[in-house]
């Protein structure tokens, strides 16, 4: 610009406009240039496709190994046992059981003793049953007290090593000292299988139960419920706080230094390593506020702090994208600023806000580090009864099982990852469905 002005100011110094001949589009240089350009575009497209293929194959490999290792985690091997519910062995008085309040007596009977007695029919393989197989006997009798004094055929879980043998998880051609399972156990398994006493079926205990020291009894249900409680707390805190903060920052905050500082802080907060939030939760919610340790309540609040910046940033972008003409239109017929926000801006921004919330919640669902610090890595053998009860969460369960030395937890780890992934996909699908529904309404 300035050179042009100088040139115009001083005509004598102005360079004369050089006349060019007509452009020769057919010249070899020009043709080569065009060919080079097309080649470049083609190569770039191929590069993009290659990147996509590599990314897709990583994902496919990951999914393949998890499904291969985890599939059998949803199955459990059980042995057939003919049980005689002998009142004498159980140590209860049949008359007292039939009397009112007898069910309580029945619940306290000696089922481990009954199991020992029943296991004798397995011969040398009598110690192949799971330590907790007596629970099946109790459940059967409590469900139908009339069984007392009669016989029934029950399927009870077997030990993890027998379970893994039945699923073909050991390489039996390897030498005995390196294959991880003893000759005795192999012989017991062969015997049970020969007698037709083994079956492998769907493992409901895995889906519904809580953690256990025994792989054949461990379940993911407790952790799943813990995750659900935690996420409910997280959403209930982070969504309204995040959206209201975004509304205030976008619609009402006076522009200036303070707004800049707040904006900078929020952007930085979104990048803070999650473990820091765990330390905050430990220091404040546990030590100062005295909230219950290991509980979904504290976990949820901590994760809410972590994902709130993500929601604020996404909501601000969504609110900013609502055309100002809509605000003008509403203000112009006498809507108050709050009415403009709630009648027009938020409904129009909702799909975008929900996208941000999905991203945040998905991150919270997969988060482990901050929860380690507030005690959610506790070994919890009960399904949590509420938000203040001790609980663990799905990724934490994956972490705990992957750390366990017992061979049986390998497949449980992968199975838990599958459950985590399925829940994630379900949640995202629900959110996308909701988002599309809201989008269509407008």
């Amino acid at each position, binding site marked *: 610009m300035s050179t042009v002005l100088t040139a115009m100011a001083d005509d004598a110094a102005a360079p004369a406009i050089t006349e060019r001949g007509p452009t020769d589009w057919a010249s070899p240089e020009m043709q080569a240039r065009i060919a080079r350009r097309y080649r470049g575009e083609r190569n770039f497209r191929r590069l993009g496709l290659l990147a996509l293929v590599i990314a897709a194959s990583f994902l496919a490999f990951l999914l393949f190994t998890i499904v291969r290792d985890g599939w059998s985690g949803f199955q459990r091997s059980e042995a057939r046992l003919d049980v005689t519910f002998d009142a004498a062995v159980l140590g209860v008085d049949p008359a007292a059981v039939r009397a009112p309040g007898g069910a309580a007596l029945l619940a306290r009977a000696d089922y481990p003793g009954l199991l020992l007695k029943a296991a004798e029919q397995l011969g040398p393989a009598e110690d192949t049953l799971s330590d907790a197989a007596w629970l099946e006997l109790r459940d059967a009798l409590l469900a139908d007290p009339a069984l007392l004094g009669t016989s029934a055929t029950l399927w009870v879980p077997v030990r993890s090593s027998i379970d893994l043998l039945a699923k073909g998880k050991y390489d039996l051609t390897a030498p005995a000292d390196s294959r991880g399972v003893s000759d005795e156990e192999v012989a017991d398994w062969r015997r049970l299988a020969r007698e037709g006493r083994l079956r492998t079926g769907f493992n409901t205990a895995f889906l519904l139960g809580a953690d256990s020291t025994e792989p054949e009894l461990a379940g993911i249900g407790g952790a799943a419920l813990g995750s659900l409680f935690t996420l409910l707390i997280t959403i209930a805190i982070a969504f309204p706080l995040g959206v209201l903060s975004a509304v205030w920052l976008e619609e009402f905050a006076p522009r200036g230094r303070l707004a800049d500082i707040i904006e900078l802080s929020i952007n930085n907060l979104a990048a803070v390593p999650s473990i820091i939030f765990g330390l905050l939760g430990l220091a404040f919610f546990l030590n100062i506020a005295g909230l219950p340790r290991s509980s979904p309540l504290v976990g949820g609040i901590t994760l809410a702090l972590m994902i709130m910046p993500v929601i604020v940033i996404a909501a601000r972008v969504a609110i900013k994208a609502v055309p100002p003409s809509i605000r003008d*239109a509403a203000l*112009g*017929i006498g809507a108050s600023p709050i009415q403009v926000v709630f009648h027009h801006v938020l409904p129009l921004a909702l799909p975008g806000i929900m996208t941000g919330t999905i991203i945040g919640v998905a991150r919270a669902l997969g988060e482990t580090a901050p929860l380690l610090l507030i005690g959610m890595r506790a070994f919890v053998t009960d399904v949590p009864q509420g938000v203040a009860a001790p609980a663990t969460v799905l990724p934490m369960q994956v972490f705990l099982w992957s750390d366990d030395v017992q061979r049986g937890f390998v497949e449980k780890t992968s199975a838990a990852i599958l459950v985590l992934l399925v829940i994630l996909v379900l949640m995202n699908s629900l959110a996308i469905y909701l988002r599309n529904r809201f989008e269509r309404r407008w």
Partner: protein
Amino acid sequence: MSINPAPGTASGPAIGHNQEPKMTARRVNVFYGQKQAIKDVSIDVSSDHVTAFIGPSGCGKSTFLRCLNRMNDTIDSARVEGTIALDGQDIYAPQMDVVQLRARVGMVFQKPNPFPKSIYENVAYGPRLHGLARSKADMDAIVESALRRAGLWDEVKDRLDESGTAMSGGQQQRLCIARAIAVDPEVILMDEPCSALDPIATARIEELIDELRGRYAIVIVTHNMQQAARVSQKTAFFHLGSLVEYDDTSTIFTNPRETRTKDYITGRYG
């Protein structure tokens, strides 16, 4: 504040009318931060005719229009000095309710901006905000009369639940006018309402403005001098933030007092 006209102020004395003016502005200055956008403007707007604001781009006519219903409040850096009164009541007074003011002084914008809702909801939104309808039937009647007055009823009566944004530009702008008149305002401000429309849609809006004249005080900002000549009875010429000349439209276009007005009208600049 004083509602007595202050004749002979620096730029353009207010012109008297046979009846009380609907809106009066006295010595209005508007600043955006340090920059002064409006300089000492005094003007009266009467409810029995259409007033046009003309002038080159950036002359402040839209800024001044937005002062008349305090739409400039939404701009943090904007500052208004002087007095603007509606029926003798200072609209910048602290006790003035902006929400009510904007119901009484409606606005139609440059770009048609219907809400992304149904046609019915677009028109019903204002009356619902201000509680003007007591029943569903009441609301139906308000919506119908607003759409009829905006000349849109026959085109949309069978598809009131379709989206307002799915209509043509001209229809959208008439819907915006219907939305403005549904709250029964006293003044309608139009900020270049036809600049985004084709000539046929423009002609319909101009007809509509003519039909609405007398019922509402109408102020229209326009770039198009023919349009000002066609639809208005009073014309104000703004230049560089000042009101240069304000008179009957016929006088402005045939016998302007100021050379600047004459130069603009004849296309010397603009």
